């Protein structure tokens, strides 16, 4: 018998790793996300109790799914609309009869793709899509999700309950979308994953600069989707992009948690394994010539990642990639980043003209990175006074204390 603490940890880990796959399977069986989740939760509780006495089963996942199915049968039988649930009950009993033997967990059909399309359906609010994806596929608890988004747990719980109700009542399907809408729906899934990553990477508010859990979760989700839809080059592109960004995790903050920009990062602290994987993925997908914004951003990141030093950065290459990116995604933010590349590849003056153009529409008026970038280019153009003004605007627009400190430091060194 395992000591309780080890057992608890093993259960937690199994539940985290297998949660999405088991839940997806249960949703197919019972036709309802909330019910499936309740049953799985019940199964987890009995697992703790049972495994304490008997030790870990050979396949905890198979055990959990069998237990959850039986819980579902019980719950459906107690349903006051018993008659209308007969189909689900028969299906569950049939599945239970062919119950998986220990060690056959790999035979559990993988329906996570259906589930992620449901959770990232455009009929749900963006924040809800993120929370729901973390809960159902990532197996994060409501408290963990609330914590990650600096939300109150009860508010987050409410949001999740409402979302599951909407899915069931509004007829949001549990299926891989039709080919006509599939590309846009994949891009909705990718944007949810990337938002999770960015929330972890840049911590838009609060004092913690990186929230590792969200970063790792986003990468894990991208791996799952990438495995399930291997043909989509943008999924691979997103995975590469996140790996390449994350490779710099330990170099982008200093000893005191302060922000260290790419220029002064200690490149020896970059994670070579992640860089190698990101580059390898890109080398596989780029030759397929189905470029998209994620692949291009990943390619830009890869140029930085493979450069031995800031001084040796291949700026013309980065500018060329930004030109392609702007062609596929002509937004002011992309224009701004393109301008920064131009400031190094050509001249700060050429970049300033592009920055003015990017800001002309007013879209960037409250966008902190724009003013920080502009200030930086102004410094290099020798316009210290204007740079100071721009840094100050950036400080006013930032609500991250590390970011503010970084910008104040910049002003001090003018």
């Amino acid at each position, binding site marked *: 018998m395992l000591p309780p603490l080890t057992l608890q940890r093993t259960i937690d880990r199994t539940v985290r790793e297998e949660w999405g796959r088991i839940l997806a399977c249960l949703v197919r069986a019972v036709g309802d996300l909330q019910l499936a989740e309740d049953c799985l939760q019940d199964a987890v509780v009995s697992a703790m109790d049972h495994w304490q006495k008997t030790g870990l089963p050979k396949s905890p996942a198979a055990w959990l799914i069998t237990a959850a199915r039986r819980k579902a049968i019980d719950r459906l039988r107690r349903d006051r609309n018993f008659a*209308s649930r007969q189909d689900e009950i028969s299906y569950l009993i049939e599945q239970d009869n062919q119950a998986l033997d220990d060690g056959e967990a790999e035979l559990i059909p993988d329906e996570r793709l259906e589930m992620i399309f449901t959770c990232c359906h455009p*009929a749900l609010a963006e924040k809800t899509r993120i929370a729901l994806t973390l809960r159902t596929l990532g197996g994060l608890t409501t408290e963990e999700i609330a914590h990650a988004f600096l939300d109150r747990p009860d508010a987050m719980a409410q949001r999740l309950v409402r979302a599951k109700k909407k899915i069931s009542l*509004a*007829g949001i399907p549990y299926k891989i*979308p*039709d080919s006509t809408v599939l590309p846009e729906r994949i891009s909705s899934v990718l944007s949810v994953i990337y938002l999770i990553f960015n929330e972890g990477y840049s911590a838009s508010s609060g004092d913690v600069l990186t929230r590792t859990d969200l970063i790792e979760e986003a990468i894990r989700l991208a791996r799952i989707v990438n495995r399930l839809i291997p043909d989509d080059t943008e999924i691979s592109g997103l995975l590469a992009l996140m790996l390449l960004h994350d490779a710099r995790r330990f170099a982008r903050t200093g000893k005191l948690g302060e922000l260290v920009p790419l220029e002064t990062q200690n490149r020896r602290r970059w994670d070579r394994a992640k860089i190698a994987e990101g580059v390898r993925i890109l080398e596989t997908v780029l030759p397929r010539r189905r470029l998209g914004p994620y692949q291009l951003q990943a390619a830009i990141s890869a140029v930085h990642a493979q450069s031995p030093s800031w001084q040796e950065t291949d700026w013309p290459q980065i500018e060329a990639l930004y030109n392609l990116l702007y062609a596929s995604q002509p937004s002011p933010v992309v224009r701004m980043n393109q301008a920064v590349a131009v400031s190094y590849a050509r001249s700060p003056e050429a970049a300033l003209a592009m920055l003015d153009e990017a800001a002309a529409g007013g879209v960037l008026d409250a966008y902190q990175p724009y003013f920080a970038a502009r200030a930086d280019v102004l410094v290099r153009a020798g316009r210290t006074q204007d740079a100071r003004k721009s840094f100050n605007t950036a400080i006013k627009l930032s609500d991250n204390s590390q970011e503010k400190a970084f910008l104040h430091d910049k002003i001090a060194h003018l």
Partner: protein
Amino acid sequence: MQFMLLIYSAEGTGPQPGSDEFGAFMKGYVDFTETVKKDGKMVAGDALQPIATATTVSVRGGKSEIMDGPFAETKEQLGGYYLLDCEDLDEAVKYAAMIPSAEHGRIEVRPVMVWDN
């Protein structure tokens, strides 16, 4: 399941009767209705008379109050509806996007409540 597709638009927007575009616009509705019938989705569908014809009724303390017009002062008004039998929300949304008024107004898609006994 059944979905109600509620057609909202601001009166006076979109193609107006008498204009060249109006004919094509109405033909769009005829074609759409034909499509949903042919696909076996149509349950019902109607256009409503303009908002100026609306009367609002409420009962307070057992007394009926009848008022001219609608309470809501929103610019966009309910102008008609389709009740369709669709597989799921994706299918309902696909049909909603085919309604001609979607191009200047908006279509609210609502599932019809099913009462369990």
